[in-house]
């Protein structure tokens, strides 16, 4: 009697695919709407955040420098958001990426500074460690079938705690060579150097999620883990891949973070998991798994980055002199709104169905 199964998602219409009237469907895609919001947001900041200073120079949001700055600052969170997209597609979650960023930053600094390794060797080792840490999450989640939420909450504390323990909460590693700082503070071929790396990862993730069987499997698992198992997909291996990749990318983000600030410290990346999750959810990836896209995530990252940076350029009255707090507050609120918006159609349709049945 599976015909009238009570599974809510079963009756929900699936994501529309562009076929016949592709132009209209493209317009109503989540990504298109988000792009529109992003443009409006950007124009607002451009209008209210750009001023001319006493010497007649344009300052604030509307300068090219500021735009590059936004790009530079969004790389680390952007990387974490990219890493989280496949995981959330499988209906999982990883709260530990921000903490892992901190731990990897410290380990990278320590390997280079105290371990006497070259930057390249230290960076490679850090990437391996990051992947290993992701592997720890993956093992606990797939081999022991523990809920990702509590596992990554535990490693969230563990990774940050290890970073603090290694540095005694005080040590920061500085004096990195200029050749390394070039990665985080200079431009290469016109763009901030790390943006090229970010772009590279974005393209790789896009290919992985949209053009390979891995992405296909992530979706299938997110929609129906049992269905995926019955289709003969290696569910555990695919899920594990998501978490290991997240660890690897968090390590890369740690190296870029260190290069941008010129120092490695234990509180690196604190709270980044929230921005990353928000970017992913804002980008249209369902927290219940299955639907979502890398393009959406990138737009979500852009929306948050512009917000964070734009608030800082607004006249003092508007931003209450606290851009950082304001952006955190708005990001949290934005996440709630995005979540509520994502389930609203489902709730309404189920209410309607109930009324019909009653």
């Amino acid at each position, binding site marked *: 009697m599976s015909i009238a199964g009570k599974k809510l998602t079963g009756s929900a219409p699936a994501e529309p695919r562009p*076929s016949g009237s592709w132009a209209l469907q493209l317009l109503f895609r989540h990504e298109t709407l988000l792009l529109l919001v992003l443009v409006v947001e950007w124009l607002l900041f451009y209008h209210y955040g750009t001023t001319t200073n006493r010497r007649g120079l344009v300052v604030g949001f509307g300068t090219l420098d500021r735009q590059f700055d936004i790009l530079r600052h969004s790389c680390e969170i952007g990387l974490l958001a990219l890493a989280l997209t496949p995981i959330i597609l499988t209906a999982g979650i990883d709260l530990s990426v921000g903490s892992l960023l901190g731990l990897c930053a410290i380990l990278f600094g320590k390997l280079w500074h105290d371990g006497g390794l070259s930057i390249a060797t230290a960076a490679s080792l850090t990437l391996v460690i990051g992947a290993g840490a992701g592997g720890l999450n993956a093992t606990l989640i797939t081999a022991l079938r523990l809920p990702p939420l509590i596992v990554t909450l535990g490693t969230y504390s563990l990774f940050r705690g290890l970073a603090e323990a290694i540095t005694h909460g005080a040590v920061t590693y500085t004096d990195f060579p200029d050749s390394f700082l070039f990665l985080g503070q200079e431009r290469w071929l016109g763009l901030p150097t790390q943006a090229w790396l970010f772009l590279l990862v974005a393209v790789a993730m896009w290919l992985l999620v949209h053009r390979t069987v891995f992405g296909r499997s992530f979706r299938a698992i997110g929609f*129906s883990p049992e*269905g995926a*198992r019955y*289709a*003969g*997909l290696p569910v555990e291996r695919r899920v594990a891949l998501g978490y290991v990749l997240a660890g690897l990318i968090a390590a890369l983000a740690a190296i870029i973070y260190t290069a941008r600030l010129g120092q490695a410290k234990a509180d690196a990346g604190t709270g980044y998991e929230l921005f990353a999750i928000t970017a992913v959810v804002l980008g249209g990836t369902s927290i219940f798994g299955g*639907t979502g896209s890398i393009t959406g995530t990138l737009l979500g990252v852009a929306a948050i980055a512009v917000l964070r940076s734009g608030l800082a350029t607004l006249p003092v009255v508007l931003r209450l002199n606290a851009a950082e707090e304001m952006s955190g507050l708005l990001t949290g609120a934005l996440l709630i709104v995005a979540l509520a918006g994502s389930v609203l159609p489902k709730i309404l349709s189920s209410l309607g169905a109930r009324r019909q*049945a*009653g």
Partner: protein
Amino acid sequence: MAVTPPQPLLTLRRVAKNFGGVRALRGVDFDLHAGEVHALLGENGAGKSTLIKVATGAHTPDSGEIIVGGRSLSGLTPALAQQLGIACIYQQPALFPDLTVAENIGLRLEHGRALRRIDWPARRTQAATLLVRVGATIAPDAEVGTLSMPEQQLVEIACAVGAGARIVIMDEPTAALTQREQERLFTVVRELRAAGTGVIYISHRLEEIFALADRVTVLRDGESVGTHPVAAMDQAALIKLMVGREVSQLYPPAESPPGDVVLALQNTGCAAGGVRDVSLEVRAGEVLGLAGLVGAGRTELARVLFGITPADAGEIRLNGQVVTIASPPEAIARGIAYVPEDRRRHGVILEMPIAQNMTMAIHSRLFPGAWLRDGAERTLALDYVRDLAVKCAGCDAPGGSLSGGNQQKVSLARWLATKPRVLILDEPTQGVDVGAKSEIHKIIRRLAKEGLAVIMISSDLPEVLGMSDRIGVMRGGTLTAVLPGGSDAHVVMATALGGVT
């Protein structure tokens, strides 16, 4: 002296219910009197479960009337049904596994303010009393999660008894019970009847119906084919009513002699999966039907062969080679395909497009190096859409947009694409409309002709009889008989029911 019969406790009048294109109930009449056990009989998919869900308010009928205690109810809800004293014991008990038996019963029976004090000794006494009444030897302090399935069922029955239900519906309550537990249950049912409760009793086991029921209603294809006093019936008559329509040339005939043995099982078993000691051979080009009651171990055997619950005893040979099948990917690699029973949960992923569903089991072959090739995927999907005559808006339409029969074809296409040697079909035509059904039958026959070894699990007896070259009958987790194709329906049914002829 003419006695006017008392008003029935429950009357269903011309109740009809459709699911999509499937007509589950087509105007069924049914009534239940106080102090009677009314058996409901029919093959799987005949509409029994739907009828019960209508009676408990879980489904709203499309048309027809529900009358409880003389009152015609337009909108029966589960809560209202409970208030009216309708209790249903499902095969899968809805209990609290982490809590004790006493508490489970207490939570069901106690209603009142949230801030009232729980009287634990009274709860325990109440539970103990009720458990004794239903003849269960379960400690009230035992956690429900640690109980066996039949014990959990007894707890459910104790809840219904405790709630003083006037109408008790039992959906195959004995499917998992031992002989002793069964007898206790019968005593409980008889006591309920003596106390004036009306019992709707669903079972496949004819001997139970003769032992317990006063009247029996037989459902077939969503219609009632008659209500009779049990005393006026015998087994042969009942089986005839159930099987009904003649098995005729509705089914495509076998066209080729079977070839070599492809799959051979020797004492295969899986303790966790509930399968033991199955020995069986399947040849290329033959359709082996697997008949049996629900819970007889047929789906469980399929899950063993497909590596979902790997075998832990005996031997599996493929083309003469001893193999292990530890996971679905391994099964696929060895040429075993399984079209599962529950299409919506296991067969297709409803949210994903038809083409993606069809290629899901051949990722490594169709997409070398893991890169998707849309063109190849599309070509393959279109081929199968055409070949199996899938009615859809296009390859990009989500699986959930299709009718049951077409979903089944998508599921079938997914597994045919793996180019299997052994194809296991689990209830391939359940919930499928008549047209699609005969199409699926033709496809199965054609596949056998092409040299596949087909194992077809089906609870639809005419289908098993009409399609199978040989018929395996399962009972209690093992294979009890292999009958020749074209066996008499009554013989197959009797074998599946166990012993009685």
